[in-house]
C-alpha cells in the first residue's frame, strides 16, 4: 500500500465535510441534553415527542400521498416520452429535450409563482391536487432524463423481433421493452418519490392550507434548532436512505449507481 496522494486526502476531507453534518443531526436527535451544547446521553424521547404530534403525522401522510401520485404520473409521462424520443425527428426531439432541461434548471420559484397565478386565475382551490401538478413539472423531467439515458443504450432489435413474431405493440412493450427498462424505472421512481417528499418551494406556493411535511419542517427550522426538529430531520434522512437502499437492494449497487450517474441533464438539449 503506497502513501495516499494529496488528491486522495483532499477527496477524503470533502467526503467528511459532506457526511459529518448529516451525522451530527442524526446524533443530536438522540441527544438527551436539550440545549444541544454537549452530548448528554442517548434518548428516544425526541422521536416519540415529534411523532406523537398530530400535525407532524398528518403532514407526513399528505406528503406520502402527494409523492405517490407524483411518482406514478411522472413515470406515466416519462416512459412513453423516452420511447418516443429515440425515433422522433431531430426538431421534435430537441423540443422535448429542451423543455425537460428547462424544467430542471429554471429556479423552482419562477415556475411555482407562475403556477400559483394560473390556479388563482382559473379559481382552482389550492391543495393536494395543485401541489401534485407543481411537483410533476420537475419530477417528470428527472424521470425522463433517467429513463431516456437507459433507452439510448438499448438495441431495438429485440422489440423488432417480438413484432416480427407477431406480438402486438402493447404486448411487445410489456414483455420486451418494459423489462429492459425496469432498472431505470425503479431508480427514477424512487428518486422522484424522494424529491417530491422533500420539496419545499412548489409545496409552499401551491398548498393553500394543506401542509406537507417539508413545509412544516421548513417553518420549524426557520426559527429554532431543537431536539424535536433534529428528530424529524433524522426521520426524514432515514426515509430517504431507505428509498436509496431499496434501489440498491433491487438492482445491486453498481447498476443503481450507474443509472444515477448515467442520467445527464446537461446533455439533454445539446
Amino acid at each position, binding site marked *: 500500500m503506497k502513501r495516499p496522494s494529496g488528491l486522495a486526502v483532499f477527496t477524503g476531507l470533502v467526503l467528511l465535510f459532506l457526511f459529518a453534518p448529516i451525522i451530527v443531526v442524526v446524533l443530536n436527535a438522540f441527544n438527551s441534553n436539550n440545549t444541544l451544547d454537549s452530548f448528554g446521553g442517548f434518548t428516544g424521547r425526541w422521536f416519540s415527542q415529534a411523532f406523537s404530534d398530530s400535525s407532524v403525522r398528518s403532514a407526513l401522510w399528505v406528503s406520502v400521498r402527494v409523492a405517490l401520485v407524483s411518482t406514478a404520473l411522472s413515470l406515466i409521462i416519462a416512459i*412513453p*416520452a423516452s420511447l418516443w424520443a429515440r425515433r422522433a425527428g431531430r426538431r421534435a426531439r430537441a423540443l422535448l429535450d429542451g423543455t425537460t432541461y428547462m424544467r430542471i434548471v429554471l429556479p423552482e420559484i419562477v415556475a411555482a409563482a*407562475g403556477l400559483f*397565478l394560473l390556479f388563482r386565475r382559473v379559481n382552482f382551490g389550492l391543495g393536494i391536487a395543485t401541489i401534485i401538478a407543481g411537483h410533476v413539472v420537475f419530477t417528470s423531467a428527472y424521470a425522463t432524463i433517467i429513463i431516456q439515458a437507459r433507452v439510448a443504450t438499448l438495441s431495438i432489435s429485440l422489440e423488432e423481433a417480438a413484432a416480427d413474431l407477431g406480438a402486438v405493440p402493447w404486448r411487445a412493450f410489456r414483455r420486451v421493452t418494459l423489462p429492459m427498462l425496469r432498472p431505470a424505472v425503479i431508480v427514477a421512481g424512487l428518486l422522484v418519490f424522494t424529491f417530491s417528499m422533500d420539496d419545499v418551494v412548489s409545496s409552499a406556493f401551491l398548498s393553500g392550507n394543506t401542509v406537507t411535511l*417539508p413545509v412544516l419542517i421548513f417553518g420549524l427550522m*426557520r426559527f429554532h434548532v431543537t431536539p424535536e426538529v433534529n428528530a424529524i430531520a433524522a426521520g426524514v434522512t432515514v426515509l430517504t436512505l431507505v428509498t436509496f437502499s431499496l434501489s440498491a437492494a433491487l438492482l445491486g449497487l453498481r447498476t443503481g*449507481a450507474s443509472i444515477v450517474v448515467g442520467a445527464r441533464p446537461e446533455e439533454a438539449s445539446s
Partner: protein
Amino acid sequence: MASGALAGGGVSRAGGWGARRRLAKGSLVLPAFGWTAVFFVIPLILLIAYSFGHIDIITFTVQWGWTTRSYSQVFQSLYLSAIGRSLLLSSGATVACLLAGFPVAYYISLQRGRRQLILLVAIIVPFWTSFLVRTYAMTNLLNAHWLGSGKLLDTPFAVGLGIFYTYLPLMVLPLYVALERIDPALRESAADLGAGGFSRLRRVIIPLAMPGIVAGCILVGVPSTGEYVIPSILGGGKVLMYGNVVADQFQSTGNYPFGAALAVSLMAALTVVVLAVRRASARREALA
C-alpha cells in the same frame, strides 16, 4: 439504427397502417408535452402577462395593461441589493463547488472497480438525502463551538456555505462523467511527450473535461440564483436572496405584477447567461 430505418420503411409501405402507426407513436409524447404546456409553459406566459400589469392601490386588484412600472421598481435599491447578493453568492458558491469538486471527481475517475463504486455512492447518497435536512445540518455545524457557536449564522457567509454544501454533489457528478470518458492513453502520451503534472492538467485534462465543467456550473449556478430555502434557514430572514424577494410579493405583499416582473427578470437573465455559456463552449469544441 440501420435495421430501425428498414423496419420503418416497411411500415410506411403498408399505407394507411403507416399513418396510424405514426399517430400512435406521436401520442406517446402527448402526456409529456401536455403536462409541460399546461403546468409549465402557460404559467410562464401568465407571469410575463402579469408583469406588464400593475396593482390598483385603492382596490388592490390587478389591472392589466402594458406598463413597465413593475420593471422599473425592480431597480430600486432594496431589491437591487438582494439581486446583487444572489448573483454574488451563487457565482461564488459555483466557483467553490468547481474548485472542490474537480479534484474529487478527478480522483474518482482515476479509481477502478469496487473503490470507484464506493466513492460514487458516497457522492450519490448526499445528493439523494433530503435537501432540507442538509441545509438544516449546516445550522447544526455553524452552532458548533469551534465555529463561533452560531455567530456565523444569519450572515451571507452562512448562506454561501449552505449553497456550496447542498449543491456540491450536482457539480461532482457531471465532472466525473466527463473525466471518466477521457482516454487514459491521452494522459499517458501527454506525459510521454514531457508534459508535467500541471501542464497536463491545463493543456489536456481541463479542455477535455470542459463539457462537464459547463454542465456542472449551470446545474449549480442557475438554480441556486433563485434560492429561497437556504437563505430562509441560514440567513434567518436577514440575508435575502432573489427567491425570498419573489416569494414575498406572492405570499405577503400580494403585489403579483411586481412579483411576476421579478421572476421574469430572473428568468430572462439566466436564459441569456445559459445561452451565452453554451454557445461559447460549443464554439470551443468546434475549434478543438
